[in-house]
C-alpha cells in the first residue's frame, strides 16, 4: 500500500498509510475503534476508491488492473450485507460461479468448506436465519472458494465461537504455511499476538508502527505497547462515584 488516503466530507478517515506486507506472512492490523482499519482495507481491496495512493498485490496495481488483482485476493469485508436470501450452500456456490469457476470444482470445494466451517448441518438454511457467528463463517467461506494467494479478513473472529475460531485459525495457519498471505484486522490484541507474525498499529488514520510482532512490542506485551502507542488511556482515577453504590 502506498500513501492511501480517504476523506469523507470534513473528516479524514485515512491519512496516507503506506505499508509493506511480506508475502507468506500472517499480518495483523490493530487499532482502536474508528482508526481507519476498515476504510484502509476497503481501499486496498478495490471496494472503495482512494483519494490518493494505491495498493499493489504481488506487483499488480489494484486500481489499474482491478480484475487481475481481485483474482489473487479473497476478501471478507466487515459491515456489508450478504445475499442472505440464499442458503449457505447457495451463497458459497454463487461466489464461486461469479468468479467464473467450473461447476464441479465449486461443488466439491463448497462441501469441504461447509465441513471445515462446521456448517454442513445448516447448508440448507437461509443465511438470513443464521446467527452472527455463522454469518461470519459463511462470508469467510465465500472469500476462500477460489483459492486466493492473499486473504484480507476484516474482523474475522467477531461473534465466532471459540471452537470454530480455533478451526478457522488452524485453516489459516496451514494456509500461511503453504505460502499464502493473510491480513487480518482486529482489536483483540491477545489474538493477534498469538496468531500473527507481523503487525501494524493504526490510529487516527495514520500508521504508528509496523514490523514483526517482536519488533513492535519491544519486550512488552502487545496490548501494553498498543496502549502506549495509541495513547488516550485515561487514568484509572476518577469515576470514584462508580464505587459509591
Amino acid at each position, binding site marked *: 500500500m502506498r500513501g492511501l488516503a480517504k476523506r469523507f466530507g470534513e473528516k479524514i478517515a485515512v491519512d496516507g498509510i503506506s505499508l509493506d506486507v511480506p508475502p507468506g506472512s500472517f499480518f495483523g492490523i490493530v487499532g482502536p475503534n474508528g482508526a481507519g482499519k476498515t476504510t484502509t482495507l476497503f481501499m486496498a481491496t478495490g471496494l472503495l476508491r482512494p483519494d490518493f495512493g494505491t495498493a499493489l498485490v504481488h506487483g499488480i496495481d489494484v486500481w489499474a488492473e482491478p480484475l487481475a488483482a481481485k483474482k489473487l485476493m479473497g476478501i471478507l469485508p466487515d459491515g456489508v450485507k450478504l445475499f442472505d436470501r440464499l442458503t449457505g450452500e447457495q451463497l458459497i*456456490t454463487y461466489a464461486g460461479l461469479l468468479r467464473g469457476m467450473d461447476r464441479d470444482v465449486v461443488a466439491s470445494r463448497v462441501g469441504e468448506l461447509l465441513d471445515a466451517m462446521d456448517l454442513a448441518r445448516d447448508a440448507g438454511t437461509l443465511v438470513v436465519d443464521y446467527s452472527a457467528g455463522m454469518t461470519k463463517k459463511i462470508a469467510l467461506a465465500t472469500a476462500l472458494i477460489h483459492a486466493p494467494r492473499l486473504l484480507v479478513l476484516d474482523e474475522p473472529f467477531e461473534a465466532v465461537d471459540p471452537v470454530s475460531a480455533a478451526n478457522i485459525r488452524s485453516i489459516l495457519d496451514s494456509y500461511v504455511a503453504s505460502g499464502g498471505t493473510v491480513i487480518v484486522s482486529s482489536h483483540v490484541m491477545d489474538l493477534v499476538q498469538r496468531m500473527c507474525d507481523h503487525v501494524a498499529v493504526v490510529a487516527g488514520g495514520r500508521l504508528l508502527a509496523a514490523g514483526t510482532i517482536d519488533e513492535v512490542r519491544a519486550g512488552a506485551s502487545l496490548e501494553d505497547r498498543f496502549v502506549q502507542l495509541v495513547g488516550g488511556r485515561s487514568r484509572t482515577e476518577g469515576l470514584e462515584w462508580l464505587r459509591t453504590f
Partner: protein
Amino acid sequence: MVAHLLRLKLTLLRNGFRRSPWQLVGLAIAGLYALGLVGTLVVALVLLRTADPALVQTAVVLGGSAAVLGWAVVPVVASATDMTLDPARFTSFAIPMKQMLAGLALGGLIGVPGLATTLVALATVVTWSRGVLPVLGALAGAVLGVLTCVVVAKVVTTATASLASSRRFRDISAVAFMVPLVLLGPIIAGVGQGISNSTAFLPDLARALSWTPLGAPWALAGDLHAGESGPAALKLLVSCAAIAVLAWCWKLLLERALVTPPYAGTGKRKGSRLGLLGLLPAVPAGAVMARSLTYWFRDPRYSGSLVVIPLLPVVLVFQGAQTGDYFSLAFLAPISAFIIAWSISADVSYDNTAFALHLATGVSGVADRLGRALACLAFALPVVVVFAVGYSGFTGDWTGLPGQLGLSLGILFTGLGLASVVSARYTVAVPLPGDSPFKKPPGNVGQTLAVQFGGMLVLLVLVLPEAALVIAQLVTGNGLFGWINLVAGPALGLVLFVAGVRLGGKWLDARGPELLAQVAVNR
C-alpha cells in the same frame, strides 16, 4: 422524562436530515401533500360552521371515525412505519412505565400524520363555535379523539410487532397485504356505490358510531349544541373509558414486548439443494440470473411486485365492467411490460451492500447486467405474451394482436436495456434487505423521484416508433402496420437491450466502487 423522549424524537428527526439533505426534500414533499389535504379539510370544516347542525354532526363523526380507523389500520399495512422510538430500544433503561407511555404517545404526534390529524381535529372547534358549551365540547373531543388515534396506533403496532418478529410471518404478510392494496380502487368504488345508493343510511351510521369509541369524542360538541347533555356526558365517558382500556392494553403489551426479545424463526431444510444455481449455466451471468430469480421468489420486496401482476387484469376488468368500456384493457400488456422491466432499475439499490460480493469477485459488468435482465425476462416474456393474446381473445378482435405484441415486446426489451443502464449509475431509496416492502425507505427521496421520472421520460422517447406504428394502425385501419410493428418492435427493442446491457456493464466496471459507496449510505 416525557420531555426527554420528545427531545430525543426531535433530535432523531433532525439528525436524519443531517445525514442527507435529500431527506428534507422528501419530508417537504410529504409535508406539501399533507398541507394541501389539511388545508382543504380545515376550510371545509370552517365553512360547515353555518351549515345544518345535523348534517355537520354526521360529517364530523364519520370523518373522525375514519381517522381513528385509519390510525389503527395503516400501521399494520405499513408494518412499523416509524420505529425511531421503538420501545425495544429502551429495554436497558429503567424508565417508569407511565412516563414512557406518555412520552411515546406524544412522540407519535411528531411527524406529518400526527400534526395533520391534530390540526384537522382542532378545526372542528371552529365548526362548533356556536356557543360556549359546543366549543368546550369540540375542544375536549379533539383532544380525546387525537389521543385515541395515537394510542390505537401504538396498541396495534406493539401487538403486531411481537407477532411480526418472525421473518416468515413478515415475508408472507408483506406480500399478502399487497393484494387488498392493489384492489383498493375496486373495493372503494364498490363501497362508494353502495353508500351513494343509500344516503339516508349515513346519519344512522353516524348515530351508531357516535356511541362507539371510534366516533364518541367527535360527537360531543354536536350533542351539546343540540342541548342533549345527558348523551354527551355518556359519550365523554365512553371515550375516556376507551382510551383508558387501550392504554392499559398497550401497557400490558409493552411490558411483554420489553422482556421477550424478537425471536428469529428458523426454517431448516435438510440435504443439499442448489436450486436454480445448479440448473442454469455455470457462468457468471448464469449465476447472477439464478440468484436474481431466487430473489424474485424469496424476497418480499421483489415478490410483492410479482403478486401485483396477475391482479392488474382483475383491476382493469372491474373498471371496464363499471364503465361498460373495456378500452383500458388494451393497455394491459404494454403497461405490464413497462412495470416488470422498470422494476430492475433499482436492482443494485435492492442489493444494498451485498453488492460488495460482485465487486470483490470482479464479475464483469456485462455479466452482472445480463444476468439480472435475463432473470426478469424469464417470467416477463410469457406474462406479456399471455396478456397480449388474452386481450385479443377477450375482445375477439385478432387484427390488433401483431401491433399489440410488437409494442409490448418493444417496451419490454427497451425497458430492460434502459433499466440496466439506470441501475448501474444511479441509486434510489428502496426498503433495505429484510425490511417490509412498505417500510419508508431511508435516504434521498428527491433523487429517487428525479431518477424514476427522468428514466420513464427517456423510455417514452425510446418507444415512440412502436407507439407511432400502433397509432398509425388505429387511424388507417391498415393491418400491415401491425405486422411491421411485430417485427420492428422486438428488433428495435433487442438492439436497445444489447446496447443498454453493454453501456450499463461498462459503467458498472468503471464506477463499481462509487456505486457501493452510494448504497452504503443507506444501511
